[in-house]
Each structure stands twice: as structure tokens, then as C-alpha cells.
């Protein structure tokens, strides 16, 4: 059993009023100290390579989408935000997404899709802002999700660097 010994109060403390005045003096002084508020739209949040924003799809240099609609991000997504339908193409890699929807209202920006992707096709971009007038508009389709590889390069390099720590050479 723990016995908590309460501090014996002095007369000034028992009278309460001096302590009230002391508290008031503290808050009064704080009024003139520098503010920490960030004026958000004018002063945006700093974005680093570690920033894990909304997921975006990589479009390679040859204008082909890197995604092959394997469905692993769909399976990894803990919020069931991703829906993919595949289809055939004439390219060497025979498969590409015909439909790739991410419900941004469901997305929790966890980055599991990025981790699951075997084709380095989905990355967490540094885009964070999300606002619209309807729920439907916030279900992003493939056209809204596509980004050229260059736009995501910072994050791609970061992920590759982190992965190198535990990667081993493979015959793949």
C-alpha cells in the first residue's frame, strides 16, 4: 500500500487568494510571449522525404504506368480503401490496371500499400491536402492518382535507402 503524504499547506496557500493572484500573474505574463501558431495555408507544413502523404501511382519515363494491378496493395490495405480491376495490354508486361480507385476518405496514410508493392508502383507522395464538396469526388481514380516518377523521386530514393538495410541479393 502506498501512503501519499500530502504537503502541509502554508497560511497563504490555505487562504487561496494569494495563490490565485500568483496564477493570474503567470497567465498574464504568458500573454506577451511569442506565439507558436502556424498560419497554415500561407505557411505550409515542412515536407521532408519522410513525409508520408497520400499514396500515388508511379508513371515511368515511357509514359506507362508501373502498376500491374497485382492486387497486393488492395490486400494489404487495412482500411479497404483500394479497389483494382486489371486488364490486358499489348506491352511486354501484359497486365495493367483498368480501374484503380483509392477512397481517400478511407485511406489512413499508413503506407502498407507502398510496402506491399512488388513493382515499386505506389508511393506515399508528399501531398497532404484533401478537400472537396462531395464524397464521390474524394474517391480518386487512376487519372487522379498518376504522377510522373520524377515527382516521387525523393520518396523512392528514401524507401530504397531504408530497404537496403535488410535487403539481400536475390536471383529475381
Amino acid at each position, binding site marked *: 500500500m502506498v501512503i501519499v503524504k500530502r504537503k502541509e499547506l502554508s497560511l497563504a496557500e490555505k487562504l487561496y487568494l494569494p495563490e490565485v493572484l500568483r496564477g493570474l500573474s503567470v497567465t498574464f505574463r504568458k500573454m506577451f510571449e511569442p506565439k507558436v501558431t502556424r498560419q497554415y495555408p500561407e505557411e505550409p507544413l515542412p515536407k521532408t522525404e519522410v513525409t508520408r502523404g497520400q499514396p500515388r501511382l508511379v508513371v515511368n519515363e515511357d509514359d506507362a504506368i508501373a502498376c500491374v494491378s497485382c*492486387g497486393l496493395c488492395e490486400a494489404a490495405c487495412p482500411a479497404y480503401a483500394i479497389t483494382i480491376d486489371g486488364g490486358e495490354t499489348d506491352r511486354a508486361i501484359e497486365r495493367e490496371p483498368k480501374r484503380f480507385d483509392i477512397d481517400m476518405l478511407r485511406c489512413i496514410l499508413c503506407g502498407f500499400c507502398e510496402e506491399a508493392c512488388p513493382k515499386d508502383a505506389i508511393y506515399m507522395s508528399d501531398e497532404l491536402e484533401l478537400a472537396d464538396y462531395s464524397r464521390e469526388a474524394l474517391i480518386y481514380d487512376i487519372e487522379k492518382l498518376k504522377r510522373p516518377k520524377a515527382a516521387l523521386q525523393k520518396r523512392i530514393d528514401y524507401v530504397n535507402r531504408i530497404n537496403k538495410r535488410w535487403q539481400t541479393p536475390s536471383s529475381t
Partner: protein
Amino acid sequence: MVKITVNGRVVDADPTKPLIKACHDNDVDVPMYCYHPGLSPVGSCRICQVEVKQGEAPGRVVVACRTQPAEGMVVDTESPKAHATRRECLEFLLKNHPLDCPICDKAGECDLQDFTYEEGQAQGRSHEPRRPLEKRKSLGEVIVLDEERCILCSRCVRFFEEVPKKAQLTVSDLGSRSVISTFMDRPLSGNYQGNIADLCPVGALTLKKFRFQARVWNLVKMASTCVECSRGCSIQVETLRGSDVKRFRPRPNEQVNGWWMCDHGRFAFDHANAAGRLEGARMLEGTQLVQTPIEEALCAVRDALMGSKGGLVVLSPFCTVEEGRALRELAQRHQAEIAYVSPPPSALKDELLHTGDPCPNRRGLEELGIRGEAGETLTARLAAAKVGLIAGERVVELLGPERVRELPGTLALFAFECHPVASRALRAEVGIANHVERTGTVVNVDGIRGPLAAAKPAPRGVRALERHLQDLARLSPRRETAVR
């Protein structure tokens, strides 16, 4: 029967069947690629190797699919030696197998993938390039072959030799250039091509209709029965996200279909996915059909049947036993006659599975005492009747849409159909669930009962025929009361 010991357990084994079957029958997992319970064993993939501690070759690792159990044999499937050998075989098979899993349709139900995952073969030791082969080779209407993925197990070759008994495939070329090909590059033919896509242990043979349609782990699978002929093959209905049926696949059932099904039944899901369904109920008001509450349409059916003696109830042969029974009761209650449409046999009849009879539940309906009549006869009888009720999936199609349209206005026709009915005689129509949306029983040509499963939800406002008939029975006064 002989007694053998598998992993320390004494089990009964059939000496005429391979050792791998004895293992599988006793829930001992032995991997297999070239072996298939429905085909003859060849032992070409070598993945099913197990160690025989005691028996004809003690201390040796043997191929379980080419070894016959003998009395007193002691088998260890999990010994370090067996594992090591199997790993080596696996590495050899993976030498030329591309890392296509993100693209491959087989991923998720692929034996090679599963076993590689199990054995943890994440790295290969080979640094030579894989053999480049053709990735999109069409083998006819149904099948695409990806030669790179093929591990040359020859299941597909043996299937055509042993099941339809008409060889169409072979392993051509030699050594590392061996590929599966048809004779003289002729496309595959016959009604059983689809089975080789199921058989293929890897993603080399895929169905054109299923190619890149869905990831298999997203499919919801329900055990059901094929309704395309009176064989009633056991199938698995696979739906994506509760909407479209993506494939039908055979379910092993030795009494009916073994491991196979015909292409006619396999690709019959267009019926199930068809758009333009009849939703809710529609009734004739003036000259227009207008949407009405189902209850009102059912009341109209009841009133019409009660008001006339000698109505005619026409069933579809797709009606289940339960629906047939309910319709027979309805007919008896209102002293109406009852018959089902019996279309002529189709040309698809063969020796293997297809019976040529397009009525999946002919026997079930006959057992209920309902007689089948040709479409022409029935439309003629309907034209003569005052009140007609046609019920069941595809009933209009089987009666003949033209003949149904031309039915005279003197007939009051009521319909329970999946799709809107066009007829001058139509007074009311009610939408019903199709064969992948409702439960029930059908009886096949040999009298074996097969279940139907509700694999996907029916469209909004559409209920199973059985539910409508229950409501109708609740609405109708019993026969005694009617007489009184």
C-alpha cells in the same frame, strides 16, 4: 488393402493406387505438380518425393506418385532427407520459372507458389538468364499458353489423352527447349478444353475469359451445381465483390463429374451476369406496364387464379424441386393445370459429361408428377386458356419469345421471370432471382441431388421465386374455404 506407416501412423492403403494417394487420404500433405488424382501418374516433376525407411528400398527417397504401397512399408514425408530432395527439385523447377506472380492469374491458388513459400526458397543460386519463350500463345478459343511459366508436368497432355480420349497436346522439342504445343499448331477443339486451365499447377495455361479479370483471393467461392444440362456437375461459383460471377469451376464429385466439367457449362455465367433484369413487379395499367409493389402484383395473380377454373401454370425446367412443389400446390389450390417446358435435346451431347438435355431438373420435376411438354404445345394451350402463369428462369426463352409475344389478349398472362417479358397477353410480371442468387435443389439425370447456392445477392427488389410463392400461399385462401 495393406497396412503402411506414414509419419509414425499406421494407415490402410490401396496397393493398386500410388503412395501419394494413401498419404493424401490420411491428411498427410505431400506436394504434387504432375500427379493428379484423375490422371495416370508419370513422376515427371519429382516434387512428391518422400523417404521410405523400410520397405522395398529402405533409406531411399522415392517418388510417391510412382511407388505402390506394400505391406509394412514405413514412410516419412517430413524427414530431413525428403525435405532436402524436394527443395532441390523445387529449385530446379524455379530455375526457368519467371517471377510473374504479380501479373499471373494463378497467383493465390498456385501450387508452385504455395510450396515455394512453404519451403522458403526466396533466393536462387543460378545467375544464368532464364530461357526466353513465348508468353502469349493462343491455343484456340479458350486457352492461352505462357510457355515461360510451364514446368512441363504434362498434366494437360495426359488430360486430353485420358479423359476425352483424343490427344491434342504434346511436349515438343528437346531439353531446355521443350514446350507444350498442339499437333501441327492446330487450335484446341472440343467441349473440355477449359479443364486444362484448372489442371495446370502453375499459371501456364489460363482461360481467355478469366484472364486478368480478378485476383483469386478476392473471389467469393460458393459450392453449387451447374444447370446447363441434366448432368448437374458439382461446381464452385466464384463472384467478385458481390456482383459479377467471374468463373464456374468444377468441384470434385466422383459420383457425378469427377474433377471435370464441360466448357458449355463453364462459360455459362453470361446468363447469370446478364443486365436488364426485371426488378420488383410491373402491372398493366391501361396499355402501359407500370412499377407496382410486389404485394399488389401477387394479389392480382391470386385474384385471376381464383376467378377462373382451368388456368394453366407453366414452369421452367430450371425451377428447383422446392419451387416445383410450391407451384404444384398453387395449381392444385386453384384447380389449374401444370406442366413444364421441355425443349428438344441439344447437339452438345457426348460420352463424357454432357447429356444433351438442357433441363437441369427434369427428373426432379417428373418425380413431383409434373409433365414436360414442348414449347409449341404449351403456347397453344396457353392461347386457349383464360389465365396463364409462367414461372421460372428462362421460361420465355424456352417457350419461344416470338410465340409468347403473339399470345392473344383473351389470355390473362402472369409471369415470374428474371427478365422483362414481352407479350400482348401480359397482365403482371414479377422479378425473380436466378440460379446463382437463390438456394434450392435440382435432381440430375441419375437421380443425384445437387444444391444451388446463393453466391451473390439478387438485384435490388428481386426475391427468389420461392419467397413469392410463399407470399402467394399466404394470400390465397385454402381450397376448402374457396369451395365453401
